């Protein structure tokens, strides 16, 4: 079929040529014919595809328009009519390629017109007109060539191939110009710049230390524009050098412990980013192999690389590299959490590109930190070889583990972890360690897993990351909640913290009244000896017996076990009273609460309370002898009137003084017991109920002790008050001894009078009176008169002593009470009120005449 067509074509062409030639020359000569034939074939084979889209209607339209514009509107109409008829012809025998026919006619008619016109104009104005030959010396060369083309045709656009040589000529000119100006071709420069961006010196672009950057050497002749652009592009190289330098430095320094895990992570993240950068550079290098068009002869418009294209490619990497270099600068001297915090500050940026980049970086950098937090919070492990974590541990003794074992290191705390969270983290890990070490408890692991389940975070490594601060917070909160609760459970249930506190209150703070009474009774005589003669074993035995004889025996044996006698270090002049104290042995883990200093304070309070009790005890003892009894009344009846009066007054004064002292001591005792101890204890109990963790508990206990100390006038600001109180106590003790002596004397007197009256008769008087006689002294059997004289003398002395005591006491008490309102920091209203009440009562009583007969 093809061959047949070809034959047809050939025949037809021959026929066409013959006919065309015969138009001019009726007798065509054969050489001319064959020549023309050859020419025709050449033309036909040169252009095989038309340059217009085959649209018959469009062609017809344009023809019509042409005709119309030429003024042949009737022709146009006729043509339109003809065309419609022509176009409607379909089927065998009709023209298939209607478009081609129309186009052909159009071109031929135009050519004829142009030939007519062109003949005229080409004579005068060769360059003007619609001819193909337009400019250039070489146009003749191209004219006969096959790439002849039609330029703009009237009516519609022709897509034309490269017309004249105009463009090519100008490009060639440009190429020559560029070669003249530059010593170095742009391709070489591009390659050099690419090397510089990897930190390597190229042939022409080298690192200049004076400029601190990569630059073209001045010896190379390039236009200034090129120099500038090269310098700009090499900024990327400078930044790369900086970042790379930091990475290699850190990698080298790693074993030397200068760079921690966070620093390592930072370097890894940077290297990651740099690998992306290397990929880009590899692609660019491949592209740079292609020659650049316009500057070299054989160039295609494929993917080539020029300096300008390079600057576009480098825009994004430049931003990233700048960021990295800035970070490197910032973090050179930092480590651990501080480094993470510094990088975090940089991440507060609005640009999305920067934001994403920083986020990626930070995720990697903070992963060691978060890992450390996770393991600390859930397992209490502190694996921090390079001191990067914000919690530092110190090796301490077991009892100080809670208070001093771990603390926060503010320098290493990154900003995205707030202070409160950090405190919780610290406390949680501390609790786990505390439970593990001090309480020997394993139950915290369950609490930890529960916490993890509640927070929805996995326990495996890398579960948490930067940007998930919420997740971290929730994990920490859950863990803290559970571990704290567990710790408090353990402390309360297993170690019976409350019971121990109560026991301390009962024994050290003398809450168990009957026990104290017994103890005082038993131990009292022992303690009057000098301190260095008292044996603590004996005292321990006495303590045991005191316990057994009081309600304390029903207490928990574990608690009683811890109660001990302690003899404080003493000097030579001390009596037992000064050095005696009780001690409570709070073992691990409760000694976190009851530390050495806390126990010392308890001791001080005990001392004070013990002294108070002693005074009270003394006064009660005095009362026992001062009770009206038959001895005194007997004496009373037997004496003469003058002595009787003396006796009265002395006894009376003694009574009054005793009343005063007793009142004061009772009030003080009441104040201490109820206003101070009980109130503080109830406050403490309430706080123990609501305490959420051990820190709360410690605080509550601290407050409790502090309030007791301050209110019992043992604080530093109450020093003067305390001293005056002790002087009062001493006075009271003196009174006691005086009262004892007085009553002893009275008893003696009674014995004497009984003796003297019954001496001749009663030989069978009880032996006890005889014992009194065996005393050497001046109670030699004399007459009744001598007895009376002695009695009166004695009574007078006693009376004077008592008076002296009384005045001293009164003045001291006044002074003490005057000081009380000055104490602004404690609430001593009650003490003041009651003491004043007694004072006024005593005043009132004292105003009465001491000589009135009062029934004893």
């Amino acid at each position, binding site marked *: 079929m093809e061959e047949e067509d070809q034959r*047809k*074509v050939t025949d*037809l*062409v021959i*026929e*066409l*040529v013959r*006919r*065309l*030639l015969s*138009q*001019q*020359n009726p007798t065509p000569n054969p050489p001319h014919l064959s020549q*023309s034939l050859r*020419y*025709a074939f050449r*033309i*036909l084979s*040169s*252009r*095989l*595809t*038309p*340059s217009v889209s085959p649209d018959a209607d469009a062609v017809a339209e344009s*023809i019509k328009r042409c*005709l119309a514009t030429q003024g042949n509107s009737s*022709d146009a109409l*006729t*043509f339109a009519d*003809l*065309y419609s*008829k*022509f176009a409607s*012809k379909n*089927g*065998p*025998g*009709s*023209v298939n*390629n209607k478009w*081609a*026919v129309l*186009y*052909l*006619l*159009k*071109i*031929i*008619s135009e*050519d*004829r*017109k142009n*030939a007519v016109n062109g003949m005229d104009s*080409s*004579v005068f104005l*060769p360059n003007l007109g619609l001819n193909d*030959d337009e400019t250039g010396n070489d146009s*003749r060369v191209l004219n*006969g060539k096959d790439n002849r083309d*039609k330029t703009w045709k009237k009516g519609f656009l022709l897509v034309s191939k490269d017309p004249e040589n105009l463009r090519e000529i100008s490009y060639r000119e440009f190429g020559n110009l560029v070669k003249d100006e530059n010593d170095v071709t742009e391709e070489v420069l591009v390659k050099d710049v690419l090397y510089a961006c990897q930190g390597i010196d190229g042939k022409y672009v080298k690192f200049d230390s004076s400029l601190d950057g990569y630059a073209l050497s001045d010896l190379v002749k390039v236009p200034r524009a090129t120099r500038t652009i090269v310098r700009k592009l090499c900024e990327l190289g400078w930044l790369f050098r900086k970042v790379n330098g930091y990475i290699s430095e850190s990698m080298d320094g790693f074993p030397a412990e200068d760079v921690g895990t966070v620093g390592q992570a930072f370097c890894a993240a940077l290297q990651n980013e740099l690998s992306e950068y290397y990929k880009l550079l590899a692609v660019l290098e491949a592209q740079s192999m292609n020659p650049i068009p316009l500057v070299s002869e054989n160039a295609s418009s494929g993917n080539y690389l020029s300096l300008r294209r390079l600057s576009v490619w480098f825009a994004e990497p430049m931003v990233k590299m700048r960021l990295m270099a800035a970070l490197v600068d910032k973090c050179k001297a930092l480590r651990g959490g501080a480094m993470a915090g510094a990088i975090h500050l940089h991440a507060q940026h609005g640009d999305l590109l920067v934001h994403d980049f920083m986020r990626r970086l930070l995720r990697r950098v903070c992963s060691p930190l978060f890992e450390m937090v996770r393991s600390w919070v859930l397992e209490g492990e502190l694996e921090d070889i390079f001191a990067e974590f914000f919690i530092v541990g110190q090796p301490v003794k077991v009892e100080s583990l809670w208070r001093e074992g771990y603390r926060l290191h503010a320098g290493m705390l990154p900003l995205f972890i707030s202070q409160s969270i950090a405190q919780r983290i610290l406390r949680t890990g501390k609790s786990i360690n505390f439970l593990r070490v001090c309480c020997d408890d394993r139950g915290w692991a369950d609490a930890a897993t529960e916490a993890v389940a509640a927070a929805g975070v996995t326990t495996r490594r890398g579960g948490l990351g930067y940007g998930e601060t919420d997740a971290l917070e929730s994990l920490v909160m859950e863990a803290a909640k559970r571990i704290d609760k567990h710790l408090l459970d353990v402390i309360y249930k297993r170690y019976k913290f409350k019971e121990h506190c109560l026991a301390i209150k009962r024994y050290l703070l003398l809450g168990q009244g009957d026990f104290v009474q017994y103890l005082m009774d038993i131990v009292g005589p022992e303690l009057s000896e000098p301190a260095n003669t008292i044996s603590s074993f004996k005292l321990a035995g006495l303590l045991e017996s005191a316990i057994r004889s009081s309600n304390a025996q029903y207490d928990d044996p574990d608690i009683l076990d811890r109660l001990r006698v302690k003899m404080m270090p003493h000097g030579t002049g001390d009596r037992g009273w000064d050095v005696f104290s009780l001690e409570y042995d709070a073992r691990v883990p409760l000694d976190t609460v009851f530390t050495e200093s806390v126990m010392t304070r308890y001791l001080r309070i005990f001392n004070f309370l013990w002294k108070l009790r002693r005074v009270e005890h003394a006064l009660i003892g005095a009362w026992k002898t001062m009770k009206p009894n038959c001895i005194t009344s007997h004496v009373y009846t037997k004496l003469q009137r003058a002595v009787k009066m003396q006796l009265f007054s002395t006894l009376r004064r003694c009574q009054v003084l005793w009343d005063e002292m007793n009142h004061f001591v009772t009030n003080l005792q009441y104040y201490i017991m109820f206003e101070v101890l009980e109130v503080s204890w109830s406050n403490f109990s309430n706080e123990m109920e609501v305490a959420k963790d051990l820190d709360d508990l410690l605080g509550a206990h601290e407050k409790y002790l502090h309030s007791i100390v301050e209110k019992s006038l043992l604080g530093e600001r109450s020093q003067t008050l305390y001293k005056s109180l002790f002087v009062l106590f001493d006075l009271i003790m003196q009174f006691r001894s005086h009262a004892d002596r007085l009553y002893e004397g009275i008893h003696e007197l009674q014995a004497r009078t009984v003796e003297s009256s019954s001496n001749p008769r009663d030989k069978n008087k009880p032996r006890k009176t005889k014992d009194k006689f065996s005393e050497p002294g001046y109670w030699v059997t004399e007459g009744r008169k001598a007895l009376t004289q002695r009695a009166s003398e004695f009574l007078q002395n006693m009376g004077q002593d008592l008076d002296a005591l009384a005045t001293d006491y009164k003045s001291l008490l006044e002074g003490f009470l005057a000081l009380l309102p000055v104490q602004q920091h404690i609430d001593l209203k009650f003490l003041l009120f009651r003491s004043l009440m007694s004072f006024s009562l005593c005043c009132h009583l004292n105003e009465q005449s001491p000589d009135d007969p009062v029934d004893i």
Partner: protein
Amino acid sequence: MDPDAAQTARESLDLAFHMSNILDTGLDRHTLSVLIALCDLGLNPEALAAVVKELQREPTPQAPMPSSSSPIL
């Protein structure tokens, strides 16, 4: 060729001849028919037009074709 096809062909040729006269192409009927046949066979009309133009311009170029230089320019 059946009579209908022949009829159609004749009519088409008449119409084309009429059109070409309006456009003043200077082609006679026979030449036109040859040209139409060539177009139908798929030749480029631009090339055909060029052939027509060149061969109609016969009087001016005498020398060999490729390096002909016009005395005008």
